[in-house]
């Protein structure tokens, strides 16, 4: 399968008054054409920073990409000059930002915001771009698109603003769409509409899709592949079925047990005690060590390497031949 985006050894730091935060500590990821990769993890685990750094969206300073590579269709994205990045961003790679309330320009009509992308990247005249903007609003199921195109963001509800963001992101039919928490601010019925829409677009354009979320329900619905991130690292990676049904990492297991099961029988919620580590001074060993119920002596001082079962990866010493396996 052809790889659309390939991230290798990405490390990102932020310098703050309190010291240096090692937000991303060596991440490898792969996105394939027409497939969906979901990146799961809790706030501060580095999932947003990872995708922002491949688009050159990390403000520098305070941010700094220490090392790593991100190949998009074979071209290196890290360190690319802004004028070259601008030819790719918005055209070949679309991005849906987390917060539709703040990511749209409140002083611009939504039609003009969609047209902006088209006029910069496409070979559209102004009137063609307007017609295309209306078509895009229709595609994202906004009724009366002809009138709506001249409205301002404040005249839209949250769900509709999110759909306007999607219309902007897909305006140039990107090969890769990155959606950072695309439905977190939305209600479940609207969330269903948006997820369905993304699926439709993906099938139509053979688009690669990266969804960043902490909602395992959304992951289950959308993902072909899942990467679980914790403390700036990918701790588990595999197909959705592998990660959900045969979890290799205690953190992934913990997440599942912390959610109420929709089965008839009510099982006790088992929280993951404690809190994620401070990334100002990341632990020498496994990032999950302090919260892990199955932690061993080796885990405190040695960050686990990647262990594989086929293509299913778990970064946990329990898979070392000398250790017992994770009991699911």
């Amino acid at each position, binding site marked *: 399968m052809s790889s659309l985006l390939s991230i290798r050894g990405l490390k990102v730091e932020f310098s703050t008054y309190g010291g240096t935060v090692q937000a991303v500590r060596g991440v490898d990821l792969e996105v394939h054409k027409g497939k969906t990769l979901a990146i799961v993890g*809790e*706030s501060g685990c580095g999932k947003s920073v990872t995708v922002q750094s491949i688009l050159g969206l990390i403000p520098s300073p305070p941010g700094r990409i220490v090392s790593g590579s991100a190949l998009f269709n074979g071209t290196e994205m890290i360190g690319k000059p802004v004028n070259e990045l601008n030819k790719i961003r918005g055209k070949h790679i679309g991005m849906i930002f987390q917060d539709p309330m703040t990511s749209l320009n409140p002083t611009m009509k939504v039609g003009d915001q969609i047209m902006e992308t088209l006029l910069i990247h496409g070979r559209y005249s102004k009137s063609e771009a307007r017609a295309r903007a209306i078509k895009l609003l229709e595609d994202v*199921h906004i*009724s009366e698109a002809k009138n709506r195109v001249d409205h301002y963001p404040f005249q839209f*509800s*949250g*769900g*509709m603003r999110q759909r306007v963001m999607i219309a902007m992101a897909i305006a140039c039919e990107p090969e890769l769409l990155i959606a950072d928490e695309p439905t977190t601010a939305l*209600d*479940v*019925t*609207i*969330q*269903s*509409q948006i997820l*369905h829409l993304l699926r439709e677009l993906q099938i139509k354009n053979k688009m690669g899709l990266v969804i960043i979320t*902490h*909602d*395992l*329900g*959304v*992951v*289950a*619905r959308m*993902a072909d592949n899942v990467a679980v991130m914790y403390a700036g690292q990918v701790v588990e990676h595999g197909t*959705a*079925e592998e990660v*959900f*049904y045969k979890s290799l990492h205690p953190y992934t297991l*913990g*997440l*599942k*047990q*912390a*959610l*109420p*099961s*929709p089965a*008839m029988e*009510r099982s006790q*919620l*088992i*929280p*993951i*005690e404690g*809190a994620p580590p401070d990334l100002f001074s990341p632990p020498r060993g496994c990032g999950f060590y302090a919260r892990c119920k199955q932690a061993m002596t080796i885990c405190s001082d040695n960050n686990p390497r990647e262990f594989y079962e086929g293509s299913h990866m778990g970064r946990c010493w329990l898979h070392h031949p000398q250790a017992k396996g994770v009991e699911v």
Partner: protein
Amino acid sequence: MTPLLELRNLKKHFTIAKNKTLHAVDGVNLEIFPNEILGLVGESGCGKSTLGRTLAGLYEKTAGEVFYRGQKLPQKYRVSDFVHLSREIQMIFQDPYSSLNPRMTVREIIAEGPRLAGMWKSTEVTTKVKEWLERVGLAADHASRYPHEFSGGQRQRLGIARALAMEPKFVICDEPISALDVSIQAQIINLLAELKGKFGLTLLFIAHDLSMVRYVSNRMAVMYLGSIVELGESDDVFFSPKHPYTQLLVGSNPEPDPIKEKNRPYVDLHGEIPTPVNLGVACRFAGRCPKVGDRCRTETPLLRPVGKNHFVACHFVE
């Protein structure tokens, strides 16, 4: 059993412009029984938070009555009402960042209510604050810190300690976990359950996460545009929803199970959740309902029994 709290045709309207009234809560009848956890679900803008805030006296009631232990609660709270009712009814807020005063220490935050109500003498404040911090899983030496020194989950623990230090009987939990990460949510839910048992609390648990509400609560009420459309035992509402809106909610609720999710049929529902401005006489769900009929546009359906402890407001449910 006599209800602890009884709502009769409770309404809260907001005037948003001349001749424009927002019907946030529009005629809610509900009984909440001692020691139960009643879950209240609905999408944003359906009025569930307004209902909670009205019950806590933070909003003046537009119409209708609320009885607490048989006593009618005032239409609009005066300061003296708050002083006396805050020992009975308390609230835990959604946002652990904006609901704690950043300029007060933890000790001041927790002790403020009990001190004002004359529950704690100044000599016992230190011990009492320490007790409460330990009960909610924080350390005693956190008392001198400020809210910004805590994580979201820890702040929510502070919000819980602040509410429960008043030793209330009835606690309104307004989305207490939706701002928290999954791994932290379960910690807070377990803490609430433990404290509920310990102090014999009755909870109104407001949230939009269906699976969690079903897990937490004994009974569940589903709200749409200011009114309750379905009410029943949590499992009945969750596993055999009767109202078309509840069916839609349950049908859209994503579950952490890839095989189930990928085989889930997509229910195409057109339209947005309308804003409840100037509502006429009609079913509020008529505009989006797949089963809509003529009657729905001319007559507001009322909650009526459809099974044991199960009530639905729909013309077409048998």
